[in-house]
Every structure is written in C-alpha cells, then in structure tokens.
C-alpha cells in the first residue's frame, strides 16, 4: 500500500521495473505532496504576509501552518524558532555566516568531524578564513564511528562552534549527538546538527537534544525540492545578525537605517518558496501518519537483509559498519570501479549512487575514490534487494572470468 502512494515506483527503466535505492540523495514523493502543490497553484496562489486579499490570506495561513507543523515535528518550543530555508546547505550557510560573524574571532576554533558532507565543511572553511578562525576535525575509526575520546580532546575553550552530522549520508552512521551537544556546551560552544539524513529516519526532538541549531531538507523526507528548515533556539537566533536582506525581513527601512523584523521573519528575506513550503506540510502529514516504530523496524530489517545478501558477493567490502546506523549500504567491490557498477546496475533498472557522495575527505580517510551506495527507504522491499544482489553477482562474474 505504501508503494501505491508513489506513482514513480511503478515505472520501468530500460524495460525493467525501477528499483530506487538512491533515497539518501532524494526520496520520492507521495501523491499527497504532489497534489498539495498543484492545489495551491490552482486554488490560492498568492504572495504572502503583507497581502490582505483572500488568496494571500489563505496562502499565508497555509505557509504558517507548515511552520507550526514543523515545530511539532521537531518539538521546538515555539514556531518562531523554525526558519524556512532553501535546504540544508542554505541553512548551514546561514548559520556559518551569521553565527560565525557573531562569535568567531582570530584563533577561535570550529569543530567538525571527519565524516561531514561538503555542505557542512565548506561554509565553515569560508567563514573561518574570513574571521581568522581554525577548522578542527574530529577523527573516526574504520567502522565509520566518531572516536569519542578524540572528540573530547579537541573540545577546548577555544572551540566556539561545533557542527556535526546527525546521520552520515555516506556511511549511515548515527552519531551520539545528545552527548556530543552536552559535552560541547560544557566548554561553552554552540552546536549545529546537520540533520539532512536524520529527519526522515529518526524522530528528532530538538529540545531533548538541546542543540542550538538543527538543519534539514524537505526533499530528503518525501517533500518538495527547494525547501529546508533551520531550527534555532530563540536565544541563539536572537544574537545572530540577519543573513539575507530584502523584503519581509525588515520592520522599517530608510536609506539611513533599517530595523529588522522579529523572528522568524528576520531570516526570511524575499518571496519564499511558498508552494513547496505548503507541499512540505503534506510530507510531514504523510510521515506522521505512518507508525514510527514499525517504520524503523522495517528499515532495520531491510538493512540487515541487505547486508546479509551483499556479504555473499565475492570481493565486496562494506564501507561504514557502525553499530548504530540507518539503512544506508555503502560498499566497494575489488577490481571493479563504483562507476562501472552504477552504470551496469542502472542499465538493469537499479538506481544507486556512486562516487564520493560529497564527502571527499571521508573517502580520503578510507583511501578510496568512492563507493556504491544503496540507501533504502520505507517503500523498498527485500525482493528489490534480491535484484540488486543478483545483478552484482553477474557483474562480478564478468569481471572475474
């Protein structure tokens, strides 16, 4: 029944049924999300906030309704703490620029981990360079887990910001973010969590985590592209200067002086991505309607099944074997380039991602160019994993002959 909600899953690729295993890159969208966007455009498309006519009212209510829904979903203490961005990358850039300027001075440090996505590396490199601050990297072990003692050693009073991924997109590793945050707070650092991969798979409770900032993307959780959220504690958002200037984010503008608007609008300049924010609401409804426990159990079972099936393949080595991980299976096969594997799988209808997955430094750590990554979601099945395993066996057979 789940698959019926996703029309794309019944299409064929090269005459074979599509097997979509690229969910960490972006998930597919259920009909309810696609319909919500069409409905918005057909029924009440209008620019929001300052408009007083009925369409603008309706659009504003729906847009702000998503904000309240996100607040509930991540258990923020107020919807003013929910900033709409254009994606995780945009949210981290906002944070790096704004919190970075507010807190970083020469010699200060920003601490990330060795498994970060480029989107949680480059913005910090850029602001560190601007402010004369230093980027530090907490190392990982071969299983792809943060070496916690090393993290603690790096946590000095010089560290002003810690920015760590909740769930690694290349490895599936779930980081112990609650502890990471508490320890960082103990030295007075602010903590941003990159939740791009977590938001769809784990329940996120920002108050329980006690993070200062939390960034994630709609498109990785069954929602539309072009929308993300940056959650921030009110006190932290209050000390952050605005990032983008423009309409909506101001209270009053004169050429001499501009006063900025209250939260959350201070950080939302210009016409936002109204239609997709509204569509995002339906994606959260969709997730909320599923039973969280059975989803997590199902994904865990899929992961275990996939690992056991793929372990049978000659020369296959898993990259990322953390004890605590989500349903991401990254691997390499001796003497076969990931790209060749990806191309051949695709020719047979199986969509995986190959390459460095925007985590080049992590690949450098493993001394590999890239991996093949099958990232599984709720609509994937064991039968699909069987197809993957069979096709991999055929590929290996050709290569080994």
């Amino acid at each position, binding site marked *: 029944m789940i698959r019926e909600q996703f029309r794309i899953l019944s299409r064929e690729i*090269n*005459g074979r049924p599509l097997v979509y295993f690229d969910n960490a890159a972006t998930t597919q969208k259920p009909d309810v999300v696609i319909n919500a966007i069409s409905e918005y455009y057909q029924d009440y498309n209008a620019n929001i906030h300052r408009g007083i006519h009925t369409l603008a009212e309706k659009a504003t209510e729906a847009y702000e309704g998503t904000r309240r829904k996100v607040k509930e979903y991540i258990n923020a203490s107020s919807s003013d703490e929910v900033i709409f961005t254009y994606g995780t990358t945009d949210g981290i850039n906002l944070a790096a620029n704004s919190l970075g300027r507010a807190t970083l001075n020469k010699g200060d440090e920003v601490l990330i981990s060795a498994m970060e996505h480029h989107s949680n590396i480059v913005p910090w490199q850029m602001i560190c360079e601007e402010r004369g601050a230093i980027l530090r990297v907490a190392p990982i072990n071969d299983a792809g887990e943060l070496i916690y003692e090393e993290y603690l050693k790096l946590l000095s009073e010089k560290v002003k910001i810690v920015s760590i991924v909740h769930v690694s997109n290349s490895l599936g590793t779930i980081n112990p973010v609650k502890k990471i945050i508490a320890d960082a707070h103990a030295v007075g650092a602010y903590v941003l969590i990159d939740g791009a991969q977590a938001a769809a798979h784990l329940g996120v409770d920002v108050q329980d985590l006690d993070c200062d900032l939390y960034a994630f993307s709609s498109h990785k959780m069954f929602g539309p592209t072009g929308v993300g959220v940056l959650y921030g504690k009110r006190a932290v958002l209050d000390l952050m200067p605005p990032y983008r200037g423009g309409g909506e984010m101001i209270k009053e503008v004169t050429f001499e002086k501009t006063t900025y608007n209250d939260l959350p609008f201070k950080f939302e300049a210009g016409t936002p991505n109204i239609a997709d924010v509204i569509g995002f609401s339906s994606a959260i409804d969709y997730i909320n309607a599923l039973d969280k426990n059975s989803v997590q159990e199902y994904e865990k079972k899929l992961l275990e099944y996939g690992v056991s099936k793929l372990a049978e393949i000659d020369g296959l080595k898993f990259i990322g074997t953390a004890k605590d991980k989500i349903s991401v299976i990254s691997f390499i096969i001796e003497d076969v380039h990931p790209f*060749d594997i990806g*191309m*051949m799988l695709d020719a*047979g209808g199986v969509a995986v991602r190959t*390459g460095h997955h925007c985590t080049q430094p992590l690949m450098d750590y493993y001394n590999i*160019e890239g991996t093949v990554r099958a990232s599984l979601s709720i609509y994937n099945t064991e039968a699909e994993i069987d197809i993957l395993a069979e096709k991999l066996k055929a590929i290996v057979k*050709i*290569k080994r002959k």
Partner: protein
Amino acid sequence: MSDQSINEIQDEIIDEFAILGDDKESTVFYIMELGSNLEPLEDRYRIDSNLIKGCQSKVWLEAELEDDRLVLKADSNTDITKGLISLLIRVLSGQSLDNVINADLYFIEKIGMHNVIGSQRSNGLASMIKQIRLYAIAYKTKLQSQS
C-alpha cells in the same frame, strides 16, 4: 596500422551492436567487456599532461605519430570508459592525420550511445574526440612546418 577505412570499421561496430538489440543492459555489459580487454597503458603515459577529467572517471590519452599515421593509446580508471575509448581507438588509431581530422563519426549516434551512457558521459566522449582531433591537427601543423 589499420588496413580498413574509418567508415568500414564504423559499419562493423554498428553491426556488432545491432546484435545486442535494444537491450541496454547487454549493451553496457558489452562495452564494459571491451573495456576490460583494452591493453593497459604503460605507467609512463599515465601522467597529468595526458589526463582528461570527467565526472567520476579519468582518461589518459596519448597520441603518437607513426609514418604519417596517428597512433592512439589510452586508459581509464573505469571499464566502461575504457570500453568507449577502445571503440574510438579501433576506429581512429592507425589512420592518416587527414582522415582523423575529417572523420564523420556517425557510429556513435547509430549505436544509440547517447541513450546508453547518458548525456554527461556523452559530453565526456565528445571531449575525447575533440582532444584526438587536436592531436591530429597539431601533428599536421608540425609536419607542414617541417616540409
């Protein structure tokens, strides 16, 4: 040195691919097999000045002049790219400079390569062809200035 003309070889390749039919999976497997059979390039040629960088695959391309003819050697880190290169070598290596420069490589479209490897790899293939032509033109200019 090739005794066949460029177009004769192209037609041969078209016939071979026709046997595979419309099935993309078999076609890609075949290209990969071609690739794994390509003789690896000696290490001394695998240098940065011979490197063409694509999205995920690297290509080393070396072109030498032997008796007025262009001799191509190449390698890649991925078999599929090697398979594509091996087709180019089969068609163009050992041909006269003028024939290389003026060749109409219709086999690429005829075997539906764009559809098989996608537009990003098609762009990569196009840059390889461009690079080969540039080598040929460079050698020709050199020969002319010597004569």
